[in-house]
């Protein structure tokens, strides 16, 4: 009994003093079992029933003395039983409200008298006597009974036979009986636990979603409305605030049935019940349980609303989803039972631990033992459940997505979330901290002493006036707030709410103190989320309007820390935070007054700095970038950029760099003449500042004018010299990025060559992280467009490392590497090296890369390779399956890939033998199919390929048959001379076939070609003239045939 009570019964965490049993089905069952045992005791074991307890069981009763009848002496407020022990003491003594009972017989009778109050009395008795066994049998028997539990029955029997004292024999028997009861209770409670409904976020969510679908106005619906009290869903699927989640609560819903008031319902792991409802102010929920626990929402609502239950049964048929949902529901439920049995052992061990904890430290008394293991077990269950689910159901579950399997549902939900995140993510959210599961401090673990000290301080924050609050805040600041233990301790004892509440008071000192703490602990990603969940951001945003500068600073700094994730940034924006933060930047307007002390000025600068810091965090979301721009942030940032305070420049440049991903910003940056200052700050001593400046230049230098500005302001030299410092990889990545983008301009490349940057870049091709490599190779690719630089690269031994990089998997890197290798291959000497290193084969295999950009870039790179390789035809043929691969790429739907592959085929087709092979692979119909296109680049290369492919067999005729001629004629109407030239050449080749000439003539080619003949481009002239002459000749021949 003792064991069952301590282990299984669910005690409330009532804090100080006596604990009470929670009103849960499990406890009720246990108490009922005990009642049954006691009631039947007097009949089953009459002898033992007379045994007098070592100590009386004593508790406060609700029984009225008048209820006691014969066998009792009733006088006013006291009752004595006539039954007494050897010393004449009554076995039952009641003196309202205290009752003392000293035998099982009296206990049974008492229960009989209590009638329908049985349950209450028994519960009161158990609550008041936490160790009944010890009281009944004495402490030593308590120990013996433990031994019985360990099945040392023989031992006991020995003891009994030796000890023929009749009382101890009775004691022994009772001990055995109690032990049995204990075991029985344990088994019973286990059974109960396994039957107990355990709701999980998944089921609850499904139920609510389903009910939502059938809610609304009108008589047919089951409810008027149903909604969550909180929009935010934690990653574990719960919506309850974290400190309530410990109690097993999942979410709160407001339900408005047709025929009742709005119900505020708590969904917890144990079931669903009404809570105290929303308190009017602040929308806080009174979490106290106010009604019975139901197994799910539908059952509760059926009980509370007649219309609901009526409409529900009507709609049962319409609930097409319901049966579907229920079926998979069956399976997991069974499995719950299985896993529960399986985890019994592990659960026991946790129970054991709890008990030990409880004994060891009085402090842990506050933690509710049963809840502890409940939370740990349920997470365990979830895991095992998921495993078995995945194993057993496999693909089947994929289809029934409404399945209730919690793990599964969570997985799906997570992946959906991920996708959404990716979609809505703006380009530069690299620092984004993932929505990570909220891991709380293991309740079982030993809590550090800080925890209790912080708890005490929070108590003062709650119950103290301004003076006490300030003392507590200052003292709290003395803890190591950078340490996670302290950060989480503040949250777990409910300190965050208080700190945020303080921000809403009028007390400046309290606000300052609170913000100072929030600023520190908001470095922790979990705390950030909690602050947002508790609605801390809008309050801080409001503080930004305060006339107190230090208050503004602290609020902005805290926002800077909190707004590290997207949801927080959105909240800041929605509450007008961006405008206010931008306003903070507007400092020093009045600094012209000489009378102002320098102290004031530095304060102003500090405000602006904090504003910039917060904007930097916020600027990682696209919408915020827009908001900053609209609020007029760019000119202010530009002005701040002129200062020389390093700690001001970093957030300013950081913000600009973040925002420069937007076209609007790049234009504004150019217009505000920001580049000049960025370049100036490249020369700063601060590495972080250099990094952000380089990064900003990297973003902006896509624009040609900007590239020129960088050069004109002398930015290329510092960039080149920064290349020599390779220790700081972030900075190196930014610098090489800036160099890459700048070197798109030829003049810049010349400068870089002057500064010997190309040699340095080649040196960076090895042993660098990918972010750096991408930029370095990109820069080299741009430099390679010039002969001189290609020579430098070859001479510095740059080709080998470049070719080595062709085996990578980073897509951005591959695009750049292929481009660079292709550029090098233009040089026959370099081509020899590439060929020797088997670079062409590597490029060719990149045609199989899944990413179209890589494919296209590899194909472009192959063109110069085939052009410049010795014995190119033989080389190409040596790639087994290579030609087929290339021809099949013509089926791609990416224009760039198609154009590049056409270019490759043009080069391949220069070799007659290869042309024959690709013809066999069906290149003609594939090319003809592509003919209908408006893309000039593709048109040009396609036309070139067609003209090349005409050189073999009856390909000319075949192009005609596949209707490639008519579209080609239309190419002549394009505005691109390159297209004209290629097309004229293709038409010239095709016009060797009479049928094609007819088609061309029909499509009005002659007039168009006649115009081309007047072109200054000789090749075009010649091709056009040749084509016309072919057509003309055919016409003459026909005429001649007609007349002769």
């Amino acid at each position, binding site marked *: 009994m003792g064991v069952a009570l301590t282990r299984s019964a669910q005690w409330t965490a009532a804090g100080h003093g006596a604990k009470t049993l929670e009103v849960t089905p499990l406890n009720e069952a246990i108490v009922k079992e005990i009642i049954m045992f006691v009631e039947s005791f007097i009949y089953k074991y009459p002898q033992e029933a007379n045994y007098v307890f070592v100590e009386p069981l004593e508790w406060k009763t609700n029984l009225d003395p008048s209820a006691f009848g014969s066998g009792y002496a009733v006088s006013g407020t006291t009752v004595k039983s006539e039954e007494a022990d050897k010393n004449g003491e009554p076995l039952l003594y009641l003196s309202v409200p205290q009752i003392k009972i000293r035998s099982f017989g009296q206990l049974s009778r008492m229960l009989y008298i209590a009638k329908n109050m049985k349950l209450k009395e028994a519960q009161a008795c158990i609550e008041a006597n936490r160790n009944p066994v010890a009281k009944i049998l004495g402490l030593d028997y308590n120990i013996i009974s433990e031994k019985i539990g360990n099945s040392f029955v023989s031992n006991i029997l020995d003891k009994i036979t030796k000890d023929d004292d009749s009382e101890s024999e009775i004691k022994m028997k009772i001990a055995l009986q109690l032990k049995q009861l204990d075991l029985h209770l344990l088994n019973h409670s286990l059974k109960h636990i396994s039957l107990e409904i355990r709701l999980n976020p998944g089921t609850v969510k499904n139920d609510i979603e389903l009910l939502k679908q059938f809610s609304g106005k009108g008589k047919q619906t089951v409810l008027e409305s149903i909604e969550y009290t909180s929009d935010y869903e934690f990653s574990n699927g719960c919506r309850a605030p974290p400190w309530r989640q410990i109690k097993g609560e999942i979410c709160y819903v407001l339900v408005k049935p047709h025929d009742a008031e709005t119900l505020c319902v708590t969904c917890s792991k144990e079931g669903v019940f009404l809570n105290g409802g929303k308190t009017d102010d602040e929308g806080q929920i009174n979490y106290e349980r106010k009604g019975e626990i139901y197994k799910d929402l539908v059952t509760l609502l059926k009980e509370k609303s007649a219309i609901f239950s009526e409409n529900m049964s009507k709609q049962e048929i319409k609930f097409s989803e319901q049966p579907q949902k229920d079926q998979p529901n069956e399976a997991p439920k069974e499995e719950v039972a299985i896993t529960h049995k399986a985890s019994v052992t592990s659960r026991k061990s946790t129970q054991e631990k709890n008990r030990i904890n409880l004994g060891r430290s009085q402090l842990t008394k506050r933690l509710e033992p049963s809840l502890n293991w409940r939370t740990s077990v349920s997470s365990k269950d979830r895991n095992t459940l998921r495993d078995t689910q995945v194993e057993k159901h496999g693909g089947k579950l994929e289809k029934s997505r409404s399945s209730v399997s919690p793990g599964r549902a969570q997985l799906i939900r997570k992946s959906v979330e991920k996708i959404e995140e990716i979609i809505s993510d703006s380009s530069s959210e690299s620092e984004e901290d993932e929505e990570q599961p909220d891991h709380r401090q293991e309740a079982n673990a030993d809590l550090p002493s800080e925890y209790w000290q912080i708890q*005490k*301080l929070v*108590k*003062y924050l709650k*119950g*103290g*006036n*301004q*003076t*006490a609050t*300030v*003392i*507590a*805040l*200052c*003292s709290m*600041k*003395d803890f190591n707030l950078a340490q996670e233990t302290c950060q989480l301790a503040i949250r777990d004892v409910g300190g965050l709410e208080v700190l945020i509440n303080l921000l809403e008071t009028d007390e*400046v*000192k309290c606000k*300052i*103190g609170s913000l100072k703490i929030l600023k520190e602990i908001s470095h922790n990603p979990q705390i950030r989320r909690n602050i947002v969940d508790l609605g801390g951001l809008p309050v801080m945003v409001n503080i930004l309007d305060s006339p*107190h500068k230090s208050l503004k600073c602290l609020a902005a700094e805290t926002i800077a820390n909190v707004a590290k994730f997207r949801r927080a940034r959105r909240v800041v924006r929605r509450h007008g935070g961006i405008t206010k933060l931008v306003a903070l930047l507007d400092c020093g307007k009045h600094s012209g007054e000489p009378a102002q002390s320098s102290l004031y000025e530095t304060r102003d600068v500090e405000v602006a700095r904090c504003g910039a810091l917060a904007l930097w965090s916020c600027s990682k979301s696209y919408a915020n970038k827009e908001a900053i721009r609209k609020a007029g942030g760019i000119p202010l940032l530009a002005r701040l950029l002129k200062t020389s305070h390093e700690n001001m420049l970093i957030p300013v440049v950081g913000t600009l760099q973040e925002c420069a991903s937007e076209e609007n910003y790049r234009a504004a940056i150019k217009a505000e003449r920001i580049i000049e200052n960025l370049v100036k700050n490249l020369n700063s001593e601060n590495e972080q500042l250099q990094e952000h400046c380089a990064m900003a230049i990297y973003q902006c230098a896509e624009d040609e004018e900007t590239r020129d500005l960088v050069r004109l302001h002398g930015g290329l030299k510092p960039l080149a010299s920064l290349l020599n410092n390779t220790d700081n990889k972030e900075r190196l990545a930014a610098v090489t990025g800036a160099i890459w983008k700048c070197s798109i301009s030829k003049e810049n490349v010349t400068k870089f060559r002057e500064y010997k940057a190309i040699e340095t870049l080649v040196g960076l091709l090895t042993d660098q992280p990918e972010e750096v490599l991408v930029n370095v190779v990109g820069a080299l690719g741009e430099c390679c467009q010039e002969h001189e630089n290609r020579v430098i690269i070859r001479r510095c031994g740059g080709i080998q490392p470049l070719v080595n990089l062709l085996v990578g998997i980073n897509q951005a890197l591959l695009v750049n590497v292929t481009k660079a290798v292709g550029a090098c291959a233009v040089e026959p000497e370099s081509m020899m090296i590439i060929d020797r290193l088997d670079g062409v084969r590597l490029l060719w295999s990149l045609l199989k890369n899944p990413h179209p950009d890589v494919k296209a870039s590899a194909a472009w790179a192959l063109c110069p390779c085939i052009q410049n390789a010795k014995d190119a035809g033989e080389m190409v043929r040596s790639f087994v399956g290579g030609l087929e691969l290339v021809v099949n790429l013509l089926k791609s739907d990416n224009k760039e890939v198609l154009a590049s592959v056409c270019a490759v085929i043009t080069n391949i087709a220069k070799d007659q033998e290869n042309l024959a092979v690709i013809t066999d692979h069906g290149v003609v119909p594939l090319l003809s199919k592509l003919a209908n296109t408006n893309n000039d680049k593709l048109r040009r290369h396609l036309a070139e390929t067609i003209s090349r492919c005409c050189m073999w067999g009856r390909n000319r005729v075949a192009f005609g048959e596949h209707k490639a001629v008519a579209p080609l004629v239309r190419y002549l109407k394009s505005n691109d001379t390159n297209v004209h030239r290629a097309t004229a050449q293709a038409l010239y080749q095709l016009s060797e076939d009479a049928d094609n000439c007819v088609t061309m003539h029909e499509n009005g080619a002659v007039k168009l070609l006649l115009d081309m003949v007047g072109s200054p481009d000789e090749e075009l002239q010649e091709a056009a003239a040749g084509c016309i002459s072919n057509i003309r000749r055919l016409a003459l021949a026909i005429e001649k045939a007609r007349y002769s």
Partner: protein
Amino acid sequence: MDQKVLKRLVESISKSVNSFKKSEIECLIRIFHNVVGRGDVKLANVGLDRNTFRVILHSIFGMTDDVLMNRVFFAFDKDNDNYINVKEWVKGLSVFLRGTFEEKLKFCFEVYYFNGDGYISRERIYDMLKNSLHQQSPGEETDEGIRELVDIALKKMDYDNDGRISFADFEKAVKEDRLLLEVFGPCLPDAKSCLDFEALAFQHILTSSF
């Protein structure tokens, strides 16, 4: 009041108080005489008594704590004659309105230490914090809570661990964290009431200078 006497008074005060302009000092003296005159005519040449001063503290500077208002009075009353004379008035206000950090630091310490031995004792802190917890349950628990709060405050500020706070302790703690300046209760006016008072007191100068 005699213009000549006033001028001389302003001259002499302005030698020791330099945060106010002479015209401002003149205004403050006028106010002093107004208040004193209205209070008790007979004691006009002696100064402000404690009650009158407390009314000023309460109505103009928004202070509420009786104990601390008394202490502020004593901090103003340098010569301990239980009256604030005109010099003490101007000097005190200069700390109130324009005081530097060091002046305010000294002022607060003077308000908080009681028996003149230069230390803030544990008992003294207890007295000052007595009412700082909202009465949740009467009796011992609050008492215990305040004792603990005193411990926390001492732990924070008593650097030399002698169980009391010396000026050096106080200075060090406050310099580390400005919030601790009025650690045992508000004894300085907040910024807003300062501005209001200045606007009111010096309105004559402001308008006349234009």
